[in-house]
């Protein structure tokens, strides 16, 4: 058996929860997520940073978990696809749009694409455009869809998210608000 290196205790927040796990210093974040923490949503397509299927967010930025040593995440916030819908009632608007557009065929690249796309829509203060989506997702390969339905879904989700914002902004006048209705 390979002689194990001394393990380090990694303290990290994953999907909002504090996690402590003993990791080998040479293991990647992807290995620790998938094989130690059973967070299987992040996928391994190439294990060398070419395909983007392992994309997670570290402190809100999309990163390739297969090129990131687990110990690099010490003290940081890691979000995987399993945590994407937190605060969205179980389904993120991007997931819902991907589902409506049939934007996931085999679905293997989809978690990574969702993590890249979420950063784009979060940082863009208006609905995103086709060239913006293509640029933001250029590090994520998909072999099934020809990308078309994914682009449609991201644009659609971002529009809906901004429509919701406007509704919320003008909500003071809205009789639809339960609180207002109660008054």
């Amino acid at each position: 058996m390979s002689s194990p290196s001394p393990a380090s205790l990694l303290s990290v927040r994953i999907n909002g929860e504090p996690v402590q796990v003993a990791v080998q210093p040479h293991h990647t974040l992807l290995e620790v997520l998938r094989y130690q923490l059973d967070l299987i949503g992040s996928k391994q397509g190439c294990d060398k940073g070419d395909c983007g299927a392992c994309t997670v967010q570290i402190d809100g930025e999309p990163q390739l978990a297969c090129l990131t040593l687990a110990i690099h995440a010490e003290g940081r916030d890691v979000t995987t696809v399993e945590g994407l819908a937190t605060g969205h009632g179980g389904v993120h608007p991007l997931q819902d749009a991907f589902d409506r557009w049939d934007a996931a065929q085999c679905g293997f690249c989809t978690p990574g694409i969702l993590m890249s796309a979420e950063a784009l829509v979060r940082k863009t203060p208006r609905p995103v455009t086709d060239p913006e989506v293509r640029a933001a997702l250029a590090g994520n390969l998909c072999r099934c869809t020809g990308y078309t339905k994914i682009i449609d879904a991201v644009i659609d989700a971002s529009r809906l998210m901004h429509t919701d914002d406007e509704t919320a902004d003008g909500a003071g006048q809205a009789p639809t608000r339960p609180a207002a209705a109660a008054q």
Partner: protein
Amino acid sequence: MPDDPHHDAAEAADHDNWQLGGTHRKVDAMERMRGITRYTDDLKLPGLLHGKIKRSPHAHARIVSIDTSRALAIAGVHAVVTGRDFPIPYGIIPWTPDENALAVDKALYVGDGVAAVAAVDEETAIEAVDAIEVEYEVLPGLFDPEESLASDLQINPYSRKGNLSKKVELEFGDVEGGLSGAHLVVEGEYFFEGTTHAAIEPHCAVAHVERGGSAGDDGLLTVWSATQVSHYLHRELSKVLEVPAHRIRVIQPPLGGAFGGKSEPFDLEFCVAKLAMITGRPVKILYTREEVFYSHRGRHPMLMKYRTGFSRDGKITAVDANTLIDGGAYSSFGLVTTYYSGQLLCSPYDFGSYRFHSRRAYTNKPACGPKRGHGSVQPRFAIEVQLDKAAVALGVDPIELRRRNDMGEGAKTVNEFQIGSNGFLECLRRVEEASGWKERRTTLPYGRGLGVAGSTYISGTNYPIYPNAMPQAAVQVCLDRSGRARVFSGANDIGQGSNTMLAVIVGEELGLPLEDIRVLSADTDLCPVDLGAYSSRITLMVGNACLDAAHRLRRKVCGAVAKRWEVPVRRVTLVERKAIDIEDPDRHIDIAEAFSWAEEDHGLLGEVGSYNTPKDRHGDYRGGTIGASPAYSFTSHIAEVEVDEETGVVTVGTIWVAHDCGRALSRRIVEGQMEGSAYMGFAEALMEQHIVDPDHGGVHPAPSLLDYRIPTFIDTPQLRSLIVEAPDEQGPYGAKEAGEGPLHPSIPAIANAIYDAVGIRLDSLPFSPPRVLQALEQRRAAEAAGELAPHKGTARRTA
């Protein structure tokens, strides 16, 4: 037959259509997007061991000895196997069993598996693989098919004809007469460099032997594999491992893409099974990306020499094709590929006469096999460019030339295949209109151009891979008293959405929304036999079987309701979770109650439907069954390109894709197949190249997703899908295939658009910048010498 599904299909077509042709959320997509779905590598079993395969560094070498003692001495190593543990050869095609799970006496390409280990973790397995000592006697590598056919050194030990893997010569009609009497003969030589599938999920397999209990003392071997052909894998495992089929269960977990790249057994499946049998513990092997590239089974390189005769008005009088196919080290599906390289070309155009001569050679390269559009994407490139050259020479619009050669519906091809419905002319019309062809093609400036191409493809093959007269597809549907349905199908959903397709059919027939239907598929213990996801067979064949079962249940349910309402059964329909009286729509009951009434009358509600192909639609000659299909799809593309004459870079702006899928059962899923196909063809036209380097002993120069260059979001053009529906009486509700046909025209449409843009013919793939620059150079020289007029009337500078 009393329960003719086609008759029922016609009947069904005029009632509800409440699911058919709509858009649907796929039955299994949301859990994939939540990261819950367990693909094969996501499976974790107690005591799981990790396997690794040792691979040959030589392209051609005799194995003198293998010493596994050092590997076995490493702590944590549980077992080592070599080719000697798998003496029985196998092959996906029963007539060409020419590979062993691991090489027995010879390694035939760089990457050929020679031994495998199982160890407590992946790192120990890698260490053990390195500790295995293999002594090789290195033999000369043969990398060129002509060279290999001429050589006395036989590559594959099982071959019966030296390095000739397969030869097919067929002739239909008077080809010499058709050529000699032609007004114009276009001659061309085309080269299609191989490409590979590159599904994002690498191949992975897990095996476990369970003993005792219901598994019995002999045990039950379960193999979970990322395969698209569970049934064939089941058969080959049984044969090679010498374990009866009833003691093997094959499960295909959700799959991360395949495209033909997972449509035969691979070394890892045999190795995990054997290692699990030896160790008594579960074993997993996950290919590295590099191993995926070497395992390959992708599109064959083909060198194609074509002569095509045309009458003065552009009618095809004769096609004479001579094709040399580079097969790599093993047969794979090569027997079929060799036939397909000629047999699938004879539509949508009426060939006056046709001859093809195709040879497939063994070489010391990763074996080629079926990739989306198996065997027919390469010749489609050749013939569609031939047509474009003829259109230019005859001064006929390229779309018009294709119209003049259209064979129409119900035609018989020159090689005697029976065509059913045919929406090809409508496909041409749709892309012509959507692209603005008529106005724009004449006005686009030098450097920009439009190109057109057409194609046809099979909706499954009339004859299965191993000869048998049993149904090609069977589906079981069960209803329960809560008002829900379960569908059991052996078919492999590989991301194309076949599970959703089955749910749409059951939903349509039984009045259920898709969320009330659970589809269980590709588990050989639970599901009826299905042949798998290949040759675009699932929608037509499995769809028909499903419709058969669903319709039997519909009759029972409607009958039970009609009996209680005391109305004729034709007045009852099932829609929106209700049974409704068509003539008095206020009278309705919940579907759960309707199911309960039917269960009272008939007992447990389960039906099995099956489908077999028509056997009267093929040619009456040796090989005439290969390529014959129940129904054919049709496609046309127009590509718009821009060619940068400084850099040689070709940019494809838009591809308009019109595809006749018979009937779109679920529109966005069909569009997704069209877009994914067009993308994959585009990638092969401009970027991808699966090669090995003879100057470096046959290693793959680019076995990574970065260096192999698959298109990103930025590279991929706008894809405009235009669904055309010419319902075919053979398909469920008229449906035909949509997953492979729409790939074919991408490549020639782009080639023809490049000609339209800058006046150069690129007859070798891919259309890379060096090839573009070289062709532009030649064109300029010819213009300067007065041999050619300036393209589009523009005088170009000479280099």
